């Protein structure tokens, strides 16, 4: 149902500003509480660290399981709470841009976790292969990967709580 109309640039600008305001209000109303964002991002950091340093000889494998289960339970709890409040957040975003956004996030986290793990393994004395991995000499690799994942999860959950790519300044 389209129609050809005439509107002024000022009217278009005003509509975009209004959309910008609505977008920000919607994001604020759908955003999980800060305690949830903090705990989830910390658990994702612990999960990344555990994945990087887990070996047969240490107990970080348990850390992987515990933090993984805790993250899944927290997300399920949030989806349940949101549903009670009147928001159904799908696991896969319905829009094409949302799916691309989710795929890029997944790729980013996969790369960080993989590099963190590989750098840690390549840096161990028993498996050390000189020059085999460019950051094999980086002893802080698991910590750096954990911090990157933790901060990214916190930022993405805060800015894009529904996993939908929402332009948060539509007037620009």
């Amino acid at each position, binding site marked *: *149902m*389209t129609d050809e*109309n005439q*509107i002024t640039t000022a009217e278009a600008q005003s509509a975009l500003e209004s*959309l910008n305001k609505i977008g920000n209000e*919607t994001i604020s109303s759908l955003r999980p509480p800060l305690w949830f964002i903090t705990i989830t991002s910390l658990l994702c950091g612990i999960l990344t660290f555990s994945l990087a340093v887990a070996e047969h000889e240490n107990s970080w494998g348990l850390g992987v399981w515990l933090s993984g289960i805790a993250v899944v339970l927290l997300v399920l709890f949030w989806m349940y709470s949101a549903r009670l409040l009147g928001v159904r957040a799908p696991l896969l975003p319905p829009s094409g841009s949302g799916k691309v956004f989710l795929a890029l996030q997944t790729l980013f986290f996969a790369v960080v976790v993989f590099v963190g793990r590989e750098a840690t393994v390549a840096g161990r004395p028993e498996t050390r292969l000189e020059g085999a991995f460019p950051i094999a000499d980086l002893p802080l690799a698991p910590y750096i990967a954990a911090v990157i994942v933790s901060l990214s999860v916190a930022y993405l959950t805060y800015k894009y709580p529904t996993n939908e790519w929402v332009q948060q300044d539509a*007037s620009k």
Partner: protein
Amino acid sequence: MKNLRFNALIHAPKRLHICAMLSASGELEFKLLREQLDVSDSVLSKHIKSLQEAGYVGVAKRRDFGHRRTWLSLTSAGRDAYTEHVKELREMVG
């Protein structure tokens, strides 16, 4: 003043608000949308009906937690129409 081929149905303030909210989420409950828009049931129903007739909004009634609830979502046609509309507005502003 410029000629702009835009969607008159979506451009109405309340309907633009509805589409903007639905585009940022999966499904929203009728009650939540009504509170956010600060309108009565009948006003929101009227807007939803016109969007539904155009094929832009999907309405699903389900029993959740023992209550009958009405869930609203943008259809793919509605999402495309809204995206195009915003794109047209941005092009006009430049």
